[in-house]
């Protein structure tokens, strides 16, 4: 019940809008012009909040759902209870230590793999040296050339992003995209394109960082999924980076690119190419796309 001598409060007026007010309040409002006017203001505020929200693009929705469905395969059914998860349960999941014998087995496997990589690396170096001697090192020269639009800075290049090296399958881009390199800042997308023309940097630039923290890991995975769903002839995600272009962050992905058509031309094998796509981290809209031979 309300005291008829007390003025009506906003709480009473608001509750009346929701049919949750105490008995007698509605009658008092009807006889109080000032209260009625105030309630109209509250009603307008409620109406604005209830206004429809623009939906994301269909590709973005598909990516969100697809990423969530990935969890079906990894669900271990842990945590029984009536309460729904109050937060994404990733941080809450406890890690169990593996049994000692699996640790020992893993060490053995790692040693064997390491030795194999060292051996194959030596073989590759010899092979590469032979190739360089025969054909020159134009790619290395291009990588060293400073970019005029980025203040003379040229990021180091990870082996020219050899497209022959298999990347992460598109089905697992979500996890791979999370490891992003800080590509630095650029005045425009042309400058970014010039910086990435010869390869993808393996290390962040010494100055003019893009502030990779401006882009969340969720955005990295979501946009990777969006690009993967576009139907482009891409095979695997090779690299991910974050650049700041004209003050705005962009996510940069590099994919193996295999357009339709024969893989040989006049009996000569066509080198595999890579597709570089830079998207904004909100709507995942492409801002720069080019193919590197």
């Amino acid at each position, binding site marked *: 019940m309300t005291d008829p001598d007390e003025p009506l409060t906003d709480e009473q007026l608001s509750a009346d809008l929701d049919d949750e007010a105490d008995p007698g309040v509605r009658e008092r409002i009807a006889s109080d012009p000032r209260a009625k006017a105030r309630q109209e203001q509250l009603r307008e505020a409620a109406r604005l909040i209830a206004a429809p*929200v623009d939906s994301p693009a269909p590709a973005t929705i598909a990516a969100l759902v697809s990423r969530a469905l990935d969890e079906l395969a990894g669900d271990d059914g842990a945590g029984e209870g009536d309460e729904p998860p109050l*937060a994404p349960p990733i941080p809450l999941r406890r890690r169990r230590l593996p049994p000692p014998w699996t640790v020992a087995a893993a060490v053995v496997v790692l040693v064997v793999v390491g030795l194999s990589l060292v051996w194959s690396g030596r073989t590759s170096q010899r092979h590469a040296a032979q190739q360089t001697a025969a054909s020159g090192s134009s790619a290395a020269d291009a990588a060293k050339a400073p970019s005029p639009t980025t203040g003379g800075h040229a990021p180091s290049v990870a082996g020219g992003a050899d497209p022959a090296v298999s990347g992460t399958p598109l089905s697992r881009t979500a996890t791979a995209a999370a490891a992003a390199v800080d590509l630095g800042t650029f005045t425009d997308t042309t400058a970014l394109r010039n910086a990435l023309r010869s390869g993808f940097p393996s290390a962040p630039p010494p100055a003019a960082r893009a502030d990779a923290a401006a882009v969340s890991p969720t955005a990295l995975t979501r946009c990777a999924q969006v690009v993967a769903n576009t139907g482009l002839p891409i095979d695997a995600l090779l690299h991910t980076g974050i650049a700041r272009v004209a003050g705005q962050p962009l996510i940069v992905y590099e994919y193996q690119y295999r357009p339709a058509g024969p893989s040989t031309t006049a009996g000569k094998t066509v080198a595999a190419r890579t597709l570089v796509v830079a998207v904004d981290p909100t709507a995942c809209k492409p801002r720069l796309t080019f193919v590197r031979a």
Partner: protein
Amino acid sequence: MTSAQQGDRRAMDTLLRSHQDRIYAVCRRITGNDADALDATQEALIAIVRGLPRFDRRARFSTWAYRVATNACLDELRRRTRRPLVGLPEHEPEPRGGAPRVDDQVAARVDLDAALADLTPEFRAAVVLRDLCALDYAEIAEVLGIPAGTVRSRISRGRSALADQLTGNPTTPHERPRT
């Protein structure tokens, strides 16, 4: 629903697609910008997939999903304090027949976002769950884990603050009915 709870991928896909728009809308209103809303929506959908086998149907699925989404939004806002904002909304609103001009829509949205931003996330969540999701006070109390009286107070204070800001004529407490 049963198939989805048992891990049927197609059923889960259908379930998520039928609710993602409302979940995104809740996240968009609570977080106040597209980037955080998408991140929170993603986390909410993942949490729904993981938590659905344990959903006991005591509440409606939509109410449970709003609860998951609201918590994902509040978590996202806590994380946002550790990284800078990306900027204003990027994606273009879908044109609607007879709707106001896009410029007007964006301006109204930014105004609303700015007005909502002045509320604490907990107050924002109460108002959004009431006015956007049409939950009653008891349901909001369950979603937020607070007494129904607190829900009533938060909704009132949220609407009052919004009304004052959106009319551009903020009144002092003694000029308007007490809160």
